[in-house]
């Protein structure tokens, strides 16, 4: 498999180089999508299927839709001139410096098992069997809590861009498609499967790779597809229920974290209750992540009435 790994590394470097240095915005975006698939493969080869799942869902999936939409918008606005091939030296210098620091960091890694034995030792007390979920939702719950808040903040940052300040209107443009066309048919076929896979990923996350972010992304994809196929109207923030869906995940996480103070400290989950608490957080957080990501991909409201 050494040949395979070397070839994969070469393709990753080529795709990255083509995305960054190649001419044409559209080509760069397609190379970025391809790069996501290749990186997902690399993560599997490195034995990190959790990261591979996230990369496949976000890098090759949702980000691709977002960037392709952006290129389409630029081209409609007549702003998609070919990129100049002039090298921006300050940027190149900064990127080169960060790159050199990363290489130095990788080379100076001490060989050894890292933190894996320490996590394995404490795993029975965390309430879950997947070490990655244990780290994300118990041992380093702080990180995950803040990440979920960052996601929410990013969506709120989109709202000021709403057309006419109507941030409560339905997200994105009004999508339409040929009623019996390929797109509408695809929109009926894929979401049920995506729903099943998304729920499966969250449930399986307790004992094998998967979890709220991966499952939430797949669920978001299902929602985005339903809206893009013109089958349902995107939700608007005028409905309190949708706003609740956005804050429920981070809110419950925070509430249970505060409840943990009764057992010794903020975000400390007692072993006996940890499994139930983590599962509850994961499920509600999945919902919030799915709605937040879907609304971000659909974009700020562009008029066309609420709901």
């Amino acid at each position, binding site marked *: 498999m050494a040949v*395979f790994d070397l*070839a994969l590394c070469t*393709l990753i470097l*080529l*795709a990255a180089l*083509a995305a960054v240095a190649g001419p*044409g915005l*559209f*080509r760069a975006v*397609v*190379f970025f*999508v*391809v790069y996501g*698939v*290749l990186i*997902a*493969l690399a993560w*599997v*080869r490195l034995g990190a*299927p*959790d990261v*591979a*799942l996230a990369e*496949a*869902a976000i890098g*090759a*999936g949702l980000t*691709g*839709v977002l960037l*392709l939409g952006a290129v*389409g*918008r630029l081209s409609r606005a007549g702003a*998609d*001139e070919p990129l100049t091939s002039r090298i921006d030296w300050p940027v190149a210098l900064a990127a080169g410096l960060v790159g050199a620091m990363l290489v130095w960091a990788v080379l100076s890694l001490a060989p050894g098992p890292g933190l894996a034995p320490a996590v394995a030792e404490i795993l029975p007390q965390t309430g879950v069997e997947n070490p990655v979920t244990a780290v994300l939702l118990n041992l380093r719950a702080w990180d995950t809590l803040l990440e979920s808040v960052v996601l929410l903040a990013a969506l709120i940052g989109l709202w000021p861009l709403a057309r006419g300040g109507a941030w409560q209107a339905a997200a*994105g*443009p*009004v*999508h*339409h*498609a*040929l009623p019996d*066309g390929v*797109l*509408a048919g*695809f929109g009926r076929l894929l979401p049920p*499967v*995506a729903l099943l*896979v998304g729920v499966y*990923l969250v449930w*399986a996350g307790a004992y*094998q*790779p998967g979890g709220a972010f*991966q499952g939430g*992304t*797949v669920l978001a*994809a299902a929602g985005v*597809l339903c809206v*893009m*196929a*013109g089958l349902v109207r995107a939700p608007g923030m005028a409905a309190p229920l949708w706003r609740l869906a956005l804050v429920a995940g981070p809110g419950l996480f925070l509430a249970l974290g505060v409840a943990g103070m009764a057992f010794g400290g903020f975000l400390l989950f007692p072993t006996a209750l940890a499994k139930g608490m983590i599962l509850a957080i994961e499920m509600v957080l999945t919902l919030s992540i799915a709605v937040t990501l879907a609304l971000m991909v659909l974009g700020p409201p562009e008029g066309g009435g609420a709901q």
Partner: protein
Amino acid sequence: MSTWLAVLAVGLLGSLAAALWRVWHGPGQADRMMAAQLVGTAGVGLLLILWAMGERAALDVALVLALLAALAAVGFVKASSVDGAGDPEEEAPDPSMIKGRRHDP
């Protein structure tokens, strides 16, 4: 067995590399996008081979990739429509009018 799987994996990676060549050369936007879809398909195939070689979780990654790689195609179709929210099928009875056929600058 495992040697054959490795040979198969390298072969699939070769077809993936050919798709990269097509993404680079185009010439149409649709050509590049279809090549990206081929990369997604080859990626699913490769993950299945990695699963057969003992990488247990590769199957779930393949499932997610198969589901979401198609989403980029939907994004492309949307972006190719006149208002960015439509469907080229509903607006262009003549397929040569579909903007995806246009060549990049």
